[in-house]
């Protein structure tokens, strides 16, 4: 039996997995870079080893050897979808908790995944046959499928290395930018071209397989609320699928066909775009645990990370397709250190105040603490705030309540943005698409009522003349300068 699992990641996802390691009765091993010496994930580990980068396979595996860790969970991002790393783990006799290197290779690149999907008879968005070699080919492909087109990084995710091209004159610059961004982010500059659907919905299917040939899907997640092609709110069920229950089966079946064709095991996610006529197109397979996996866990009463451990250790999947059921509604808001009033630009810095929500139906996967400085070197995700309730309207009400309990000061953040977004009539109607945020105008609420202004002045008068962080014990300490 394995005794230790190393988690090759940082932030909230490292904590999510380290918690699961402890719940499984094993020793939790963390790694950290110099920048992360004071990061919260270390507090959830029994042992911690320095690495020079979360992207350096040798450094991570050296830590695993020193720790005597028999298995490694990559989290998401970093090395999680790197087939060479998965293979290197196998060579080093460290169990990689995730799909096999072969499955990652055949699905990890978007172009390869397309081929697999086409072979498996799943619908795909029209686009280039694999990566585009040069400018001439790009021009030919783009005019054949018709503008607008999207340029995407073959190895990519999260919108990195992606460019929307409206017309041919923009193609060359966009191709160059996308390729160099892809090179920096994923160490591969390969890009491909795809027809840009206008304002589709983004709906994905969670799949799971063991090493014994069992493959199931756990339904969909609605991820249409995105900025810069990065999701900010995810839900299960999708409001669209709730209206058309047959879509869950159809998309689930398509996802499983692709997974079967690739011999897929462990957790994965098939992403689909859905147009206004309810046609769905396979987009890509994420061969890892997703950021938004908690909403699926909340609605299906599963623990995907424990399932990942068990499947990786060779256990047979207990859950069969007919056992999977969906109960209630879950929503996740990604709390980011970013400025929604300034194009969501990242805002690293010190978290001066942090008040977090709790109570019925709340799940908070948080990677930060008050007084910590969010470093500029990494992703600005602070925490994932998830709620569960009996139905979507009640889940929205619960999220609004939770957001009122949430306070972050010191860095720009999107808490107030979410508060406004959840009140939006269109959001509440469930009519979502990936263009939603382009049409949603966030107005930071800075108008205080008369009585709020009084309250603010009262606190300022008490606090300002004194050195921070001393607070007055009673009102007798009123300042008089």
């Amino acid at each position, binding site marked *: 039996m394995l005794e230790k699992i190393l988690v090759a990641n940082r932030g909230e996802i490292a904590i999510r997995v380290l918690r699961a390691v402890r719940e499984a009765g094993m020793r939790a091993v963390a790694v950290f870079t110099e920048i992360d010496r004071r990061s919260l994930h270390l507090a959830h580990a029994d042992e911690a080893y320095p690495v020079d980068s979360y992207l350096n396979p040798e450094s991570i595996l050296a830590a695993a050897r020193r720790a005597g860790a028999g298995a490694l969970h990559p989290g998401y991002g970093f090395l999680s979808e790197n087939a060479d790393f998965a293979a290197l783990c196998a060579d080093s006799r460290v169990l990689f908790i995730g799909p096999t290197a072969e499955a990652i290779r055949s699905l990890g690149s978007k172009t390869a995944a397309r081929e697999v999907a086409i072979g498996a008879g799943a619908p795909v968005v029209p686009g280039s046959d694999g990566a585009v070699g040069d400018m001439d080919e790009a021009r030919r492909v783009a005019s054949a499928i018709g503008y607008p087109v999207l340029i995407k990084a073959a190895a990519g995710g999260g919108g990195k290395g992606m460019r929307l091209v409206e017309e041919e004159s923009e193609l060359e610059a966009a191709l160059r930018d996308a390729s160099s961004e892809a090179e920096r982010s994923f160490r591969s500059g390969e890009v491909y071209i795809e027809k840009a659907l206008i304002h589709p919905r983004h709906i994905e299917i969670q799949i799971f397989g063991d090493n014994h040939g069992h493959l199931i899907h756990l339904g969909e997640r609605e991820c249409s609320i995105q900025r810069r092609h990065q999701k900010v709110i995810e839900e299960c069920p999708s409001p669209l699928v709730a209206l058309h229950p047959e879509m869950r089966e159809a998309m689930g079946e398509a996802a499983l066909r692709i997974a079967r064709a690739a011999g897929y095991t462990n957790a994965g996610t098939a992403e689909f775009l859905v147009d206004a006529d309810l046609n769905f197109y396979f987009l890509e397979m994420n061969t890892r645990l997703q950021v938004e996996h908690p909403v699926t866990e909340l609605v299906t009463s599963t623990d995907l990370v424990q399932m990942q451990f068990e499947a990786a250790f060779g256990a047979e999947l207990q859950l069969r397709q007919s056992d999977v059921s969906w109960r209630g509604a879950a929503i996740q808001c990604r709390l980011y250190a970013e400025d929604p009033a300034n194009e969501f630009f990242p805002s690293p810095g010190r978290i001066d105040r942090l008040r977090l929500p709790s109570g019925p139906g709340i799940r908070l996967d948080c990677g930060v603490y008050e007084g910590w400085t969010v470093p500029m070197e990494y992703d*600005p995700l602070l925490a994932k705030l998830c709620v569960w309730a009996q139905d979507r309207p009640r889940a929205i009400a619960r999220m609004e309540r939770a957001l009122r309990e949430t306070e972050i000061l010191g860095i720009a953040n999107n808490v107030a943005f979410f508060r406004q977004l959840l009140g939006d009539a269109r959001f509440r109607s469930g009519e979502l698409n990936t263009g939603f945020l382009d049409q949603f105008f966030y107005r930071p609420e800075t108008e205080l009522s008369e009585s709020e202004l009084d309250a603010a002045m009262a606190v300022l008068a008490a606090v300002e003349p004194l050195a921070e962080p001393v607070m007055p014990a009673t009102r007798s300490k009123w300042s008089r300068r």
Partner: protein
Amino acid sequence: MEPPVKRILVGPDSEKEVEFDPAAFPLMPLEQGTTLVLRGVQVHRVTYANGRLLVNGKEVQLSLADPRDRRRNSNNNADSGRRDIKAAMPGKVIKVLVEPGQPVQPAQGLLILEAMKMQNEVRSPGTGRVAAVRVAVGDTVASGQVLVTLE
């Protein structure tokens, strides 16, 4: 009974003189940095740190000044026409797009900063000429650091 206090309430782009009676604002300090203020029976939650406030979740930048201090320093701001373009956040200079002496248009890109793997073009706020480029490619810059001076 304490007398009403005269103060200037300073916002990000305006200020006004206010007078209020401390006794009318019962403060109920909770954990460090968060205070409840009762106005009648209405509860307001105020969280404070370094000049920033969250008032019932609304973030505002306010401070109180003493009217007597104020009168002394009200004659600065002689506009020389020079303008420093500062980094809005810490980051790394990826590319410099202008050189000294070059005329610039509104919204023209001056340089590219990278932070948290995001690239951001720092643009000119108006028409002018580049007086100096204060940073070089590869430099790590702090929030508020001067990047380019325009004139």
